[in-house]
């Protein structure tokens, strides 16, 4: 009897111990995308979704073109359809048209799509047409792990309108095999008298990029260049400009606005801080690859990820792409915070404050919401919750082309990345960089006011004119500031101020 009891106990214990694994295997057999982790229990796990029945219902989604965000949307739609019996129609749209494709039917009172993908800075224009994320999703376990910055980005005045599926920020990527190479460190010191190190300031960045420009420094028989940057007008280049401007213009001593002075709503984008950044950027046209002035985000990812340049800075995608096993520079890259500056403009004293300043830019990223007029809201939120469940999320963040980047505390652990083949020190530098940005008290958040598109487009056009040599940096930014004044007058200063105050509160660490 004792033997039988012991055997039974052993069998029951084994079942209890190994049941999660058996659970995981069951789903990863059917869905190889999550083979690394298997299903991870949760409210929106594969197991949970399989218990839902949406047979006979159709979910319509408008997302970005394949692969960035479009590919994971389609993949998870297919998985969701298999699990729940729903029919899921996915429409792919170029990035530049995502806004209008949702906005036109929104304004006409229609809901051709239940779920609309866009950028997080659409939130102010879209929120009146989006259904707030229901409490049960906001309070669920997988949401509790989302960083406060990304909860803030997905929310407006404390109400979450966008379901967090992606986390974005701009940071520096560099060729570790060059910057940490003693041979090049010695040569750089001998030739310039300066240390070759991860650049602390944009000036250092420029000097190193210029030094390593237009010669074959990795011995592959091809010339390499200094930096790959998003400089193409209308292709998110304004984000790159804000990244370069933050260190010169985000002064922790002068809270109350980075883009505007919140009190007066005077545009700040033509102050000496921004002009200095644009002057640096014009200089950068000399150390980008030929044609680099026309690089969009895809070109930047391809250029740095393909081993063509020493530096790059923008979203995570270029870094993750560079770390893919098939990349020529796999495990040869490093991450660091955006360079800083040795001076920052003080708009109150109207002078430069000397000393090191750094300001991370929490640039907008992919965002997604459910249309208020959708007739399938529950299914839509279930899909989004499933999209971002822990198993999918862990698989997605390791695939550079997916455009899904870290936004949960759990992502900031080096183990997550070493498991997919990253060297330990690279993984550590990556997660440290992201975590430090989260901790910073001098952050810049994207402009999220009525007319955001007009403001950014005016700035991009002006900056593009400066890069193309059509205008001087000061004249270009004066032109942009004048246009910002015109937009303010059209939209209404108070409307913009009210919306801008929300972003400023985040920047000033009041939210």
């Amino acid at each position: 009897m004792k033997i039988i009891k012991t055997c039974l106990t052993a069998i029951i214990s084994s079942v209890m111990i190994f049941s999660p694994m058996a659970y995981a295997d069951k789903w990863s057999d059917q869905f190889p995308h999550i083979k690394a982790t298997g299903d991870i229990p949760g409210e929106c796990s594969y197991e949970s979704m399989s218990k839902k029945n949406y047979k006979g219902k159709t979910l319509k989604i408008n997302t970005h073109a394949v692969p960035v965000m479009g590919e994971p949307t389609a993949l998870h739609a297919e998985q969701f359809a298999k699990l729940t019996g729903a029919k899921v129609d996915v429409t792919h749209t170029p990035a530049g048209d995502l806004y209008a494709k949702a906005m036109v039917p929104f304004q006409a009172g229609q809901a051709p799509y239940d779920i609309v993908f866009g950028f997080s800075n659409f939130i102010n224009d879209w929120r009146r047409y989006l259904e707030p994320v229901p409490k049960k999703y906001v309070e669920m376990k997988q949401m509790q792990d989302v960083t406060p910055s990304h909860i803030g980005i997905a929310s407006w005045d404390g109400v979450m309108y966008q379901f967090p599926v992606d986390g974005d920020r701009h940071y520096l990527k560099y060729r570790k095999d060059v910057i940490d190479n003693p041979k090049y460190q010695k040569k750089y010191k001998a030739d310039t008298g300066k240390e070759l190190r991860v650049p602390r300031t944009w000036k250092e960045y420029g000097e190193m990029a210029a030094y390593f420009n237009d010669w074959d420094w990795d011995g592959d028989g091809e010339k390499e260049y200094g930096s790959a940057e998003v400089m193409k007008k209308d292709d998110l280049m304004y984000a790159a400009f804000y990244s370069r401007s933050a260190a010169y213009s985000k002064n922790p001593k002068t809270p109350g606005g980075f883009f505007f002075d919140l009190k007066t709503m005077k545009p700040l984008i033509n102050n000496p801080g921004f002009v200095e950044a644009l002057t640096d950027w014009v200089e950068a046209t000399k150390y980008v690859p030929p044609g680099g002035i026309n690089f969009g985000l895809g070109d930047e990812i391809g250029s740095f990820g393909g081993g063509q340049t020493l530096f790059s800075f923008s979203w995570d995608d270029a870094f993750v792409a560079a770390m893919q096993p098939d990349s020529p520079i796999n495990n040869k890259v490093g991450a660091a915070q955006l360079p800083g500056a040795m001076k920052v403009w003080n708009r109150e004293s109207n002078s430069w404050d000397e000393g090191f300043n750094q300001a991370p830019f929490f640039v907008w990223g992919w965002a997604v919401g459910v249309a208020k007029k959708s007739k399938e809201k529950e299914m839509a939120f279930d899909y989004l919750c499933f999209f971002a469940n822990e198993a999918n999320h862990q698989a997605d963040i390791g695939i550079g082309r997916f455009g899904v980047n870290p936004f949960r505390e759990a992502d900031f652990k080096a183990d997550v990345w070493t498991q997919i083949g990253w060297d330990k020190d690279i993984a550590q530098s990556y997660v440290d960089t992201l975590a430090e940005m989260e901790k910073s008290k001098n952050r810049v958040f994207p402009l999220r006011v009525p007319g955001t598109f007009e403001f950014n487009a005016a700035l991009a056009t002006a900056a593009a004119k400066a890069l193309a040599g059509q205008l001087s940096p000061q004249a270009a930014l004066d032109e942009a500031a004048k246009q910002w004044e015109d937009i303010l007058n059209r939209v209404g200063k108070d409307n913009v101020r009210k919306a801008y105050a929300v972003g400023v509160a985040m920047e000033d660490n009041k939210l």
Partner: protein
Amino acid sequence: MNFKHKYVFLFPGLFVLIGILIFPIIFTIRLSLSGWNSYTPEMNFIGITNYIRLFTDDPRFWESFFRLSFLSVSTVILQYIIGFALALMVWREIKFKRFFRVIFLIPMMTTPVIMTVIWRTFFHESLGPVNDLLGNIGIGPILWLSDPVIAKFTVIIVEVWQWTPFMFLLLLAGLLSLPKEPFLAAAIDGASSFRKFVYVTFPLMAPISIGAIIIRLIEASKIMDTVFVLTSGGPGTATETSSFYIYIKGLREFQMGYAATLSFTYLVIMIISLTIIAKVLTKLMIKE
């Protein structure tokens, strides 16, 4: 007899005309008098505010219009010259005439957006084959897409490549329909090929040439896909054309009311300028 019922037969055509032509124009005019944008999603009435903004405070539109004029006139002139030369070539009795006729038409049969993507790849300054080939003979790299002046010529190259076949087709059809007698008379008089072209072929082809040029000018003035894919209007605003600018204002910045103002103004300017161009061409090319 009372033929009033005949008007009943006009109604279907009239309704279609109103539906597809008159209504959109009237709607555009009404929209142009509104401030419809992302933050004011309604057809409010703001009078001629948008028109005042356009004529007093939007130099970018006028710059893009003059750029468009340069691009469309230069591409159409080149297309006419090359198209005419090719048409004359295959009009004569040459070997593989049919083969050449098909070959010359291929660019026009391809999808403009896809071909522009391919051209963009060709002209990519650091990764494209054009600079690679030129580099082998010690030239370049040429900044095909990132130099403000060269980028305009790159757009012209792509447009000429894509649409010369259309000109070729119209002009070849014209050449094939010319009467033979004037050419026989010229041959009997011992006229050289050059004199035959100047005094017989060209004058006889004038009406067709004017039609072809006007059709191509109308098409070229709508240039959008080439600019959109090849340069996105850049570098800076160096290749931005009117239609691309209107697209940015309307569908990127969502200034629907203002974009309607630009569209209607553009339509009026085009109607006036193309009418003048047609009259001038007729005066220059057709001798009574």
